[in-house]
């Protein structure tokens, strides 16, 4: 792996240059006779270091857009370029490497591997990246310490609360130092208190590590509290794009604590 992949900090000062650039992005499914236009001609540009929320009701295509950005899916037509790489043109192998080094993902249902301990879950991406064992151990500890789970590193996911699982998932998303953090309804399975905890961490990654964050959610309030920019989708089309001035105003180190109290 290249060193640039592992150091998002270096991209932090470059806030403002486009990290994601989607043009006429389409993703159509065929379901029986019907053609479903999950994503239908979306144009989107996200600057490096930006925190963007994709909003919309279920079936609006927001998750499909996220999957296309994540390189989990390929567009039917159009293009999505992330850090000057057109994902539509990458081979399966290259796409896997892109997911490994450039993208970190968190999901609504945490998606930790049940048979592995937290430490093993967190270091799994490094196994795919062929990082050697000693380095893997120390990085996994470091990441778990960052999300406050070092004491539980040898527990299995089933022994943890939802919030703890999502924190572990965040640690895993962070482990290969990606530039992009993609979150698909990260608080959907959590109560509001733990949801806030998670969101504060996401914001911390965004602000301290300079990661570009794209978060899918259907909760407008949540998006307004954390995202700098709100992008609205309906029926696979982009129907609104507004910057969120409230959030930029109240970014600060005291923020995490006060947010928790406000809920």
């Amino acid at each position: 792996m290249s060193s640039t992949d592992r150091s998002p900090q270096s991209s932090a000062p470059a806030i403002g240059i486009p990290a994601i650039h989607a043009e006429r992005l389409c993703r159509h499914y065929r379901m029986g006779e019907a053609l479903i236009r999950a994503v239908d001609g979306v144009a989107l540009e996200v600057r490096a270091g930006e925190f963007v929320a994709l909003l919309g009701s279920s079936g609006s295509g927001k998750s499909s857009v996220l999957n296309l950005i994540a390189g989990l899916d390929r567009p039917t037509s159009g293009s999505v370029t992330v850090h000057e790489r057109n994902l539509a043109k990458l081979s399966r192998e290259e796409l896997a490497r892109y997911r490994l080094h450039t993208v970190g993902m968190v999901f609504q249902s945490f998606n930790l591997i049940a048979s592995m301990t937290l430490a093993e879950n967190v270091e799994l991406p490094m196994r795919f990246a062929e990082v050697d064992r000693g380095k893997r151990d120390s990085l996994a500890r470091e990441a778990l310490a960052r999300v406050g789970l070092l004491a539980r590193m040898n527990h299995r996911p089933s022994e943890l609360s939802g919030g703890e699982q999502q924190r572990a998932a965040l640690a895993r998303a962070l482990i290969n130092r990606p530039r992009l953090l993609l979150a698909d309804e990260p608080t959907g399975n959590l109560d509001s208190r733990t949801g806030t905890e998670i969101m504060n961490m996401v914001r911390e990654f965004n602000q301290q590590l300079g990661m570009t964050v794209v978060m899918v959610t259907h909760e407008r309030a949540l998006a307004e509290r954390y995202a700098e920019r709100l992008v609205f989708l309906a029926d696979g089309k982009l129907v609104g794009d507004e910057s969120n001035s409230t959030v930029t105003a109240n970014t600060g180190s005291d923020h995490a604590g006060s947010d928790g109290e406000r809920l």
Partner: protein
Amino acid sequence: MNLPDLAELAVRNLRESLLRNSLTTIGISVGVASLVAMLSLGIGLQQLASRRLMKSGLFDTVVVTSRRDLRNFSREEERNGPAPAESRILDEPTRREIEHLPNVLEAYPDIRFITELRYEDKPHLTTIAALPASAKSNDAFEGVQGRFFSSDMAPEAILQKAFAEELLGKTPKPGLDETNVAELAAPLLGKELMMRYAQREAATPATRAYDNAPASGNESLAGAAYSVVSREQKLKIAGVADLDPESMRGPTRARVFLPLGLAESLHVMQPTDLREISRAASDQPVYSSVNVRVKNPSQVQKVEDAIKKMGFNTFSILDASRSIQQFFKVLDVFLAIFGSLALAVAFIGIVNTLVMAILERRREIGIMKAIGASDGDVKRLFFAEAGAMGILGGISGVALGWALGQVINLGTNIYLQRQSFPPEHFWSVPWWLVLFAVLFSFLVSLAAGLYPAGRAARLDPVQALRYE
């Protein structure tokens, strides 16, 4: 992903659904066990057969006769090579020459004659044959009571069981011969036999005085003379051999055996002496036939050819041994096919287990892909699981097959013992078979993993993640 990581994850995954994977592994191990059992039976039987055959002295022996000996003369031999009358004499220098051919262990004259033996003043007529010291390792003398000759010149004799019975005045019972050799031998060992024989003596010049031949007659065969003198030789009974005199065992077709050196020194009148004019007057020993022992049955043909080139007739049972080897090759193939059938069933078991694992771990595969696993990583992981089952199954299968073999061996030997046959080791698991079986099991398992691994690798991560 590198190999240690793959192995670690594979073993972890196998442990996760322990029951199913153990059952599959047991399936493989039963398959391997049956393969190992079948093949080691085949190999064991073959080794047993060739051990027996080697020891019998049948397959590493070439019998050399002079072309002058018109018995057993085939037309083919008549056409090729020198005419009988012009061909070489099978005498001592020739024997030594043969002994120095490559791959020849020894060449010894075949001395056998019929004569009278007296035991406790009762005469017995029998065939006597001479044995070289090397015959000690011949399996015909495996069950000998007493001992083998103390030296090549010792005035000792080994008796066949049947002859021992005759000496003791016992008549063999019809049907299965179950006489105990030890019982027979006990009263005979160490006793003396008196052998009467006819000694051939080349006539000395003095005894030739009455000849009409010129004085230089030594060089001319015409008028050559020899005399036959009746002699006696005391023999001590050294052993009694438990073998069937009727069996087809070249040098052992006789009822009494003498050490070769002693037999040669006696210059016993041989039946062929009368026919062979040239040898009659010769001081050099001339033989009617010479037995040549070859290092290895595979070299018999070469040695035979070399001896034929020298102008002698040869005979061996090489062809018989060849077809026996061929039979065992075919037997091995058949046994391997039957053994592999069980492995084929195990193959399907692996495919089934892994396909099930894909369905079960669909989501896990999706997660791994989402966090950066490539198609190759997923494929290799499934391969590693198949391979690990293969190696585990292979190793336990070899152990199981070996144990199975031991049990069958034991059972058969108990049966053999009841039938009063000596126990045999007809089960052999050579180290190469162990390696081969484990490797084969590994490769078969990898092949079984081919389809599931490919399928897992092609899984669409978006779909897999949606799957609950």
